[in-house]
């Protein structure tokens, strides 16, 4: 399915893009009087395999490395390029669609075509399979960027477009206990989603950090749980629940540096007792409730309005000297 889509997208582009858009314009040309013996250096220095032959600004032929090799192999005396170049040059017009170029490459099997002006036949550039591929890739990239931009703008006005007394969006991410390989997956997906919603980057980062820490707590200490996120115009609310084992002393758990993490977890760089403290610094308001044997509920409120000024993590807590 995906493959089919891509092919048709490229086919579309081949009709849409003109030869002039992908051709190479900073041209190396030679004169018909240039001796064949000099061609090797020109091709080598410019790293090209062929070049148009130009008299004045008129295209009179094309010469390639194959012609040069043939001349060498035949051990003929030195002569002007004029005598060995291909004179019956196949050209393309800059305003033709790229599909014409693709057809001509197939038809003639040449490595390059000169591109000339439709009216005065002036040489404008050169096109090779390489320039076509490059042009297509560039266009695909631009298209993707534009699509993403349109998408972003559209979703940015999402809230404004909904007519209601109260609007909120809800997402849920499920987290499996003990699965380190997926650590941060939920937080990462949430981060990408909030960005698409057009939420300010510093708010997105705070939500992402708090959610990441909470997600790692679920992975390290619990049998799993879920992260529920409610996005409202003024606030993002993240609720993290698990079904056990629960925290015996919530007050202690909140003390920076206090940790019950086993040694192997610490070796991975987790479990330093900074997680909940990080979350608290990111949050506008944080709540932690836990019942041993039943589970823990962590609630994180991050205000969108006061976001920029209250970004404590990364701003205030950075050691400066």
């Amino acid at each position, binding site marked *: 399915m995906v493959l089919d889509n891509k092919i048709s997208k490229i086919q579309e582009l081949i009709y849409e893009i003109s030869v002039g858009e992908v051709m190479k314009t900073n041209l190396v040309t030679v004169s018909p009087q240039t001796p064949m013996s000099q061609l090797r250096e020109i091709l080598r220095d410019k790293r090209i395999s062929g070049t148009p032959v130009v008299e004045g600004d008129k295209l009179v032929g094309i010469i390639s490395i194959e012609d040069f090799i043939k001349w060498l192999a035949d051990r003929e005396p030195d002569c002007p390029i004029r005598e060995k170049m291909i004179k019956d040059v196949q050209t393309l017009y800059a305003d033709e669609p790229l599909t014409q170029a693709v057809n001509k490459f197939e038809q003639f099997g040449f490595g390059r075509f000169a591109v000339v002006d439709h009216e005065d036949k002036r040489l404008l550039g050169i096109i090779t399979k390489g320039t076509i591929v490059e042009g297509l890739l560039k266009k695909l990239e631009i298209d993707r960027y534009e699509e993403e931009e349109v998408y972003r703008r559209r979703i940015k006005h999402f809230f404004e477009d909904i007519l209601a007394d109260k609007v909120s969006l809800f997402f849920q991410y499920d987290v499996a206990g003990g699965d380190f*390989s997926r*650590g941060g997956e939920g*937080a*990462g997906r949430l981060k990408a989603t909030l960005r698409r919603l057009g939420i300010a980057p510093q708010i997105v980062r705070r939500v992402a950090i708090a959610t990441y820490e909470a997600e*790692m707590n679920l992975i390290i200490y619990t049998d799993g749980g879920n992260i529920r996120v409610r996005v409202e115009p003024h606030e993002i609310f993240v609720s993290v629940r698990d079904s056990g084992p629960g925290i015996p002393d919530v007050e202690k758990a909140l003390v920076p540096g206090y940790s019950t993490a086993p040694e192997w977890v610490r070796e991975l*760089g*987790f479990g330093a007792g900074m997680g909940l403290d*990080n979350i608290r*610094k990111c949050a506008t308001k944080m709540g932690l409730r836990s019942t041993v044997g039943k589970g823990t509920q962590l609630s994180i409120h991050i205000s969108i309005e006061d976001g920029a000024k209250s970004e404590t993590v990364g701003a205030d807590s*950075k050691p400066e000297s």
Partner: protein
Amino acid sequence: MKLSELIQNLNLSVRSAQENLEREVTGGYASDLLSDVLAHSREGDLWITLQVHQNIVAVASMKDLAGIILVNGREPEQETIEKAETEDIAIMVSELSAFELVGRLYGLGVTGMR
């Protein structure tokens, strides 16, 4: 300074995101504690660590870090490389110790303050 310039200057081996090396490095942070990095690193920082497991990628991605340098010639785990490719996070390996590497980075103008 760009990642590519640092790679050349410090003889770093690139292990992921080969195509993302033109990124600008605006500072540096050295730590092996993930929560510490989450709390104190800043966007555009280069992160110096000896942790090689895949969660370093999540942290770098979460904080929009410019890249990760592993010290003492420590190699990233295969899963770490795969994740880094998906997230487009550059991971580099240096034979130097953290102390020595940070010193040289500082000499090249990568600092911990802005």
